[in-house]
């Protein structure tokens, strides 16, 4: 019997859904293979999240609580994760693939001499370790991968697994933690542009994404209005983040975020493979583009060929009526 441990990421006072997706899958794997599923919360107020995590049925929840975890910094997080690995001795350690995870996953694997697969879209246990699928070549191809050893780290793309609640009877183990200022060589000077009330694109049910076609003020106004009618998160192509028109955290694609909403509306986006890499797992894709040959139409369920400035106003009106 081995331990399948899941890292529970907290951001803006909320548990990242992607970590609960991983925990749900890990618990199912544990049940099917007679392993134990455990979870760890590392946060300034880690204990606040224990009850919510319990619902997903881990048998033990480790907490590491220290004010240093208020903001993401890699040195303290790595130190905490290595302590947790010493304590829990996980066979598999799973993470939701957030930007904070990406910051430390390689370093943790190097520190622990563990095998690691990042950004997988699914994984299963084998006799020697895990096998996993990963999108590669700008997500045009799926690769089959194996990771072997007695310590394996894996990070999972958001939206890969459904949430599944389980038996809610967990032990809670607090892990003692302290870090000396002298251990942290890097200094976090400032955080720009983080606002608590933004919709997290990785978790959004609906996303309105704007591209170069919607770059002027009128286009932006229409995007904002459409998003507000649908209570949607706003995303962007690189053309707009690069031009400084949209906040860089809104970029969707290979460099930006990977999303998997129920509804993705691409407005004035051509559909370059590097953009599509981040959104092809959306359930329903709508594209609005004036070029009938734009590649985005190859993957859109509903394509509207037309000028977005003419299409969006009546579209917004119609949606308002439906929303009633």
């Amino acid at each position, binding site marked *: 019997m081995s331990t399948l441990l899941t890292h529970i990421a907290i*951001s803006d006072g909320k548990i990242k859904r992607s970590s609960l997706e991983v925990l749900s899958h890990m618990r199912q794997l544990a049940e099917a293979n007679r392993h134990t599923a455990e979870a760890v919360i590392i946060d300034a107020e880690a204990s606040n999240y224990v009850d919510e995590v319990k619902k997903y049925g881990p048998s033990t929840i480790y907490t590491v609580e220290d004010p240093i975890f208020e903001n*993401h910094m*890699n040195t303290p997080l*790595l130190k905490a994760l290595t302590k947790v690995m010493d304590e829990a001795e996980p066979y598999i350690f799973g993470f939701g693939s957030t*930007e*904070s995870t*990406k*910051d*430390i*996953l*390689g*370093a943790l*694997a*190097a520190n622990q001499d563990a*095998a*690691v697969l*990042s950004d997988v879209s699914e994984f299963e246990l084998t006799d020697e370790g895990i096998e996993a699928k*990963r*999108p*590669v*070549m*700008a997500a*045009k*191809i*799926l*690769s*089959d*991968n*194996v*990771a072997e050893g007695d310590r394996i780290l894996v990070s999972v793309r958001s939206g890969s697994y459904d949430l599944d609640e389980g038996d809610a009877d967990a032990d809670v183990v607090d892990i003692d933690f302290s870090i000396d200022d002298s251990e942290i060589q*890097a200094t*976090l*000077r*400032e955080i*720009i*542009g*983080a606002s608590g009330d*933004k919709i*997290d694109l990785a978790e959004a049910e609906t996303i309105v994404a704007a591209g170069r076609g919607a770059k002027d003020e009128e286009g932006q106004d229409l995007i904002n209005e459409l998003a507000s009618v649908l209570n949607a998160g706003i995303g962007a192509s690189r053309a707009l983040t*690069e031009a400084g028109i949209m906040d*860089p955290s809104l970029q969707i694609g290979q*460099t930006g975020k990977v999303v998997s909403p129920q*509804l993705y509306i691409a407005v004035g986006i051509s559909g370059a493979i*590097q953009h599509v890499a981040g959104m*092809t797992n959306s359930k*329903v*894709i709508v594209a609005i583009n004036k070029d009938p040959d734009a590649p985005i139409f190859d*993957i*859109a369920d*509903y*394509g509207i*060929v*037309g000028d977005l400035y*003419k*299409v*969006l106003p*009546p579209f917004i009106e*119609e*949606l308002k009526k*439906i929303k009633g």
Partner: protein
Amino acid sequence: MKFYVCIKQVPDVDAPIQIKDGKLIQDTDRMVLNAYDASAVEEALVLKEEHGGEVEVVLVGPDKAKETIRKALAMGADKATHIATSGDEDYDSATYANILATFFSDKEYDVISCGKQSQDTDAGLAGSMLGEHLDLPYATNAVGLEAEEGTLVVKRQGDAGQEIIGLPTPCLVTCSNDMNEPRIPSLKGIMQSKRKPVEDVALSDLDIDESSLQPKTKVTGHMEKPEREPGQKFEGEPEELAQKVATLLDEEENVI
């Protein structure tokens, strides 16, 4: 400032590819400088132009990768080290990070720059692995760099906001292509690149026993991603289209 930029040669993701017996076959065998590494080279060149210093690129790869080294030299890097491999290895990020760590163990530098990920695999691991092996302060996913006396100031794209991080040198940073537009080598740059020094290093020169490089992860196959079928495409009067699609989203798809 002395910069080392770790650059990798990767298959061009825009070129047509096929899968034969689970292996990826690129019709044109078009290999390119990893786009994220091109941004790392560009940024090092900009900082060198501002503050002086030297930019050296390091690549682990087969002979064919020389053309990628030339590209970085043509952009303006001063010199290069080519750590040669046979070309039929199936190394993972950890293996490359191990080789690079051994190479850097006796080197002096202010900054090691990597790309934030390989464009073909999107692994995003080798940079922070290398930072850990060398026990360097590091930051990943940088979208901007500035140099101060003894400190590299990194603007890092985090989950929500941008973190401004001061890293004491020597340090390591992994770069996003959102940092800059890499320059296109000029004719003069291309001519000059041919005279720039490229040091060839064999794995045996680094006292690396190739059999110790067993990767812990392996790619066992590839498959085409099940493609999305193009759906319905509507052309005509904007009002009608808007109404039709809105109704379909509501009644057929139930996503409104």
